[in-house]
């Protein structure tokens, strides 16, 4: 195995060399670095062009210039690793290291959300194949998969930001629009429900009525301006989530799992006030992470001590419940930060561009992070919507394949509950092909970020790459590509290794 990994890594280096050589030459032949100055009437034009030619080493043809570049990277002759300067004469290394965290922030949340939502709905869709839910999700995923991101972005910016900010000035919904919104939303939600016509109609009616009331109350108390869940909201949401999760992952028949989940939720709700006070006193990421860890480990022990046999489902139930109740508590804190944030941003809380607000004057942990969230919201929504569809399609197809396999039939035949069949036998095996997809997504991060970062004016790896191509800035371009290529090669390597670890039938050939 070690020998195999060693061999793969050395081949990976070879691939990286070949790939950078090819991209360097492609990039060098993709434009004229002096084009920008040719239309200028600057009296110093000749001096500028001569200087630029020297800077770009245009006298050396690109196939040879590559070696000058790589020589500097490895510090051959100078002993110093040097990624060179950008066309703006800044250190490439500095530019890249400033850009990477931005891109990661942008992509990580969206990718996680897309994977989790995609797999969840994909599994649901596969289990209920050819149901109304399946059709709705299939249509939805195909639809989302067909959307160009910048086309969506323009609409999202207009409707979710500009118009939403306008709406917040007077956050009331009149009765006619309320009727309309509730009716449309109820149709969407009913799409997820299967059954007879009567049942569908009842669901629609109930949803419609509840939505009407909720929206009307929210409108009356200016909830959109000063949103909060309150301890009761957190408790209600926490308990219902806990019950729901137990139902899915352990079955309501498993009383111990149910009680463990509820207990963990109780602990979370009990922490509602202390948490708020601790965080208000000195809010920082370390404390926040510590408290989260504390909550999760406590719930682990709750689950651990609730039962003696078959601890797995009980612990899972407790931990998931703890996670969600903590999530609701945090959401509530952010909601309470909304009103001060609204004032700080002059009544324009939602943002169309950039990674954070340059003009925000506050030290409040929640407000600062809420600012990050309002900037992240739109790109994350757009990215999630679009990559979610891929995960949904693949996990659905994959689970369907597995569900038709003989061993699944055997499991069913021996009387195993459907939940166990799916969770223990089918689900795990069906997720194998997805490792490849995840690896691919990671490899394609920069490529995908080029458009997203441009649309939402983020300064990350993607916009650097785009800028570098436009400016014919080879040093910068090659640095971004080398990193992307490295990521891609490593991601496939890891996916291959994972695949062989997860699926014993696939053997690595010596």
């Amino acid at each position, binding site marked *: 195995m070690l020998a195999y990994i060693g061999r793969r890594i050395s081949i990976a280096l070879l691939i990286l060399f070949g790939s950078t050589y090819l991209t360097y030459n492609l990039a060098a032949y993709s434009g004229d670095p002096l084009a920008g100055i040719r239309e200028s*009437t600057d*009296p110093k034009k000749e001096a500028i062009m001569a200087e630029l030619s020297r800077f770009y080493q245009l006298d050396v043809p690109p196939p040879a210039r590559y070696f000058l570049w790589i020589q500097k990277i490895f510090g051959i002759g100078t002993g110093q690793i040097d990624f060179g300067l950008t066309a703006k004469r800044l250190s490439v290394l500095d530019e890249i290291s400033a850009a990477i965290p931005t891109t990661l922030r942008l992509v990580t949340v969206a990718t996680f959300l897309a994977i989790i939502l995609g797999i969840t709905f994909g599994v649901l869709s596969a289990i209920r194949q050819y149901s109304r839910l399946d059709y709705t999700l299939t249509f939805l995923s195909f639809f989302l998969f067909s959307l160009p991101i910048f086309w969506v972005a323009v609409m999202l*910016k207009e409707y979710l930001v500009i118009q939403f900010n306008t709406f917040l000035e007077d956050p009331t919904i009149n009765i006619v629009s309320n009727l309309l919104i509730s009716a449309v939303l109820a149709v969407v939600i009913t799409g997820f429900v299967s059954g007879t016509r009567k049942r569908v109609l009842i669901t629609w009616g109930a949803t419609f009525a509840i939505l009407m009331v909720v929206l009307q109350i929210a409108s009356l108390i200016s909830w959109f301006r000063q949103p909060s869940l309150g301890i009761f909201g957190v408790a209600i949401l926490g308990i219902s989530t806990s019950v729901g999760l137990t139902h899915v992952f352990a079955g309501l028949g498993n009383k111990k799992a149910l009680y463990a989940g509820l207990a963990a939720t109780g602990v979370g709700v009990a922490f509602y006030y202390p948490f708020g006070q601790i965080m208000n006193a000195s809010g920082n990421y370390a404390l926040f992470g510590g408290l989260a860890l504390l909550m999760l480990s406590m719930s682990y022990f709750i689950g651990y001590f609730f039962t003696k046999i078959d601890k797995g489902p009980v612990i899972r139930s407790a931990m998931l419940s703890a996670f969600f109740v903590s999530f609701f508590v945090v959401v509530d804190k952010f909601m309470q930060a909304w009103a001060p944030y609204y004032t700080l941003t002059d009544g324009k809380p939602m943002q169309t561009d950039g990674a*954070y607000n*340059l003009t925000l004057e506050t030290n409040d942990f929640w407000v600062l992070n809420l600012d990050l969230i309002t900037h992240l919201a739109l790109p994350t929504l757009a990215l999630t919507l679009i990559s979610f569809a891929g995960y949904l399609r693949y996990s659905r197809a994959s689970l369907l394949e597995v569900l038709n396999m003989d061993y699944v039939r055997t499991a069913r035949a021996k009387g195993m509950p459907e939940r166990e069949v799916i969770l223990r036998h089918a689900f795990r095996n069906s997720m194998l092909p997805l490792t490849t997809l995840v690896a691919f997504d990671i490899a394609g991060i920069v490529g995908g970020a080029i458009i997203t970062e441009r649309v939402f*004016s983020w300064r990350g790896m993607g916009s650097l790459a785009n800028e570098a191509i436009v400016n014919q800035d080879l040093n910068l371009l090659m640095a971004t590509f080398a990193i992307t290529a490295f990521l891609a090669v490593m991601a496939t390597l890891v996916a291959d290794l994972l695949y062989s670890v997860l699926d014993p039938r696939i053997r690595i050939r010596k």
Partner: protein
Amino acid sequence: MKKTMIKGFALVAASVLGVTGLSLAPANASAANKTMVVQESNALSGLNTAVNGFNLLTNSDVLGPTGAGFTYYNNKAQLVRNTAFGTFKITKNDCGSTPSFGCFKVTYTVKKGLKYSDGTLITAQDLLLSHAISSSDYSIKAGLGDPSEGTAKFDSAGYGGAYDDHTRAESFDLSDDNFSVTVSYDAFQPDWQVFGPGPGAVHAMVGIAKGKKTFQTARTNATYKSLFEEAYYGSIATLPSQSDPDYEDELGARDDARALMKKIAAKWSTVWNITTVNSSTNPLLLISNGTFRLESCTSTGCTLVKNPNGNIGGAPKQTGNLEKMIFKFTAGTLDDTAVGQAIAAGTVDIYSGAATSSFWSVVNNASGVTAFKGNVLTYEHLDLRTGNSIFPMAPDNIKTIEGSTVNCDADYNGPFAGNSQQAKDLRKAFMLIVPRQTIANNYIGKVFDPAFSGNSPVLNSLFSLTTEGDYAKVTAGSSAYLTDLNKDQTTRVALALALVKKYYPSAAAGSDSFTVKLLTSSRPSRVANAGLMTTEAAKAGIKVEHYIRSTWSSELDCNFFDAAEFAWVKTGLSQTGTNPQYESDGGNNSAGWNDSTLDTLLGEFEKLQTATSLITTKINAEKRLWSNYYSLPMYQWPGASAWNSDLKNILPSPLAPNVTWNYWQIGY
């Protein structure tokens, strides 16, 4: 389970999608706001506005309000003298027919009592640095390397051009009181006003070269100033002969001076190349003399705040109440729709750039936003080749164009070759068919209003743009030569056909009497224009072969093409600025124009002109150009700006810094 789901969905849906069904109301701006957020179309590349590199416009936008000098450009592109900083005048103009070094002198005097942000007095010693970074002669004589070989220690974009050609290492003379400097040239300089030196805090320069990281005492700063002055002149000192007893001492002194200058040059070229500024940045880097000072910079923006010591550095008196400026940088390529939406959303206060209908339609319809139609200093024109380009393309002269192999350096013998009557007539015929009015309407009027039905201004001068003060007078003077070109399209096509018939008697609509090979880039507007020209030319019996080349800019020198449509981007306004385009040996003359009469007329731009005489000179040159049909101006590119309507005294200018040039007047 079901109820939970519904409840959950209801909440999520209510919070996210409660957006539809809203009432539109204008935004309320907070009254206490004294911050202006400016959107830039590029990112900052450093805090040095003269270092070699790409796109220094953002740098000068950001640093503009932190400095002041002898002049600035106003929104009419006129050079305005800033008397708050100092004065300058010609003190000797005696070049005559045999110019010699020193025959033309300009003296600059800094107002007494002005101070940098660290309290150090501004003197004429601070003006010396600007010569060191723009004079090749100084660089060579001071042992700092030859800029033309790329070895200069000052990695400066200032070298090259007329100033460099006509000054010497010894051009700067400091007055005894250290408040004036006299600059000597070896010939009269028509653009002398543009060439002036600007202040650079030399005491900070020396401090940085010595590795200091904090403000120094007033006494040390004064010492540093004289140190700089000594190093500056010491580096170019002439040594006595080797036999002289002082030789060793003077050589030693010169070596010391040069060592310091080299250190300063190395620091100057690198230390300001930073894009992050915060409290840990060396304060010596941020010493400035403007109304504002740089507080912080990140990769996404820079913040400028008002100088706490007040307006002490010679900037015009502040009349607006602006206290803070934030420059926001574009990531990658600017998406102007996004900028428009950001202004509408209130996250950006002001932006100025080229006009696009998408940007305009967003800002023009947003509430609380002022939208302004302006111009940029770029104009579209059509060049007709008359001979071989003076820049041979070899060794890249063999090109594959539309499948056939072409030698770009082969002699040009197309329909427009030479200055015979036939060539002139055919050139005129081709210019006549260009539907300039339609084109101008498309790219000016209809950008701002799709329903536009009037007439947008076509550009009728090759020397003045519509935004320049003398445009009306220049075009009035040369209008007689443009009469035919400004007739309506049908008449012009008929005139063109008549001209073609003179040489091709069988010419008629669609007869393809002769062929014009037209070169353009793939820019949509140019492709569309070429389409219009093809259609109109066919009516006069001329066939247009349109070549869309992505490598067009390097192929302007290719003798294969008869005509090329592209734009000239003016980076500044100077008396001699247009000469390189039309002089027989001009650096921008790719179309092979070779006209000694025109050269003589253009020579007038090299002489001292008053505003009135300059107009006459322009008219004379225009007449020659118009009667020979070399180049046809089409239209000046429109610009657009938009800003928060609460901002006062915003006067967008076609020159950079476009909207912050009058920062002292801007306020809420």
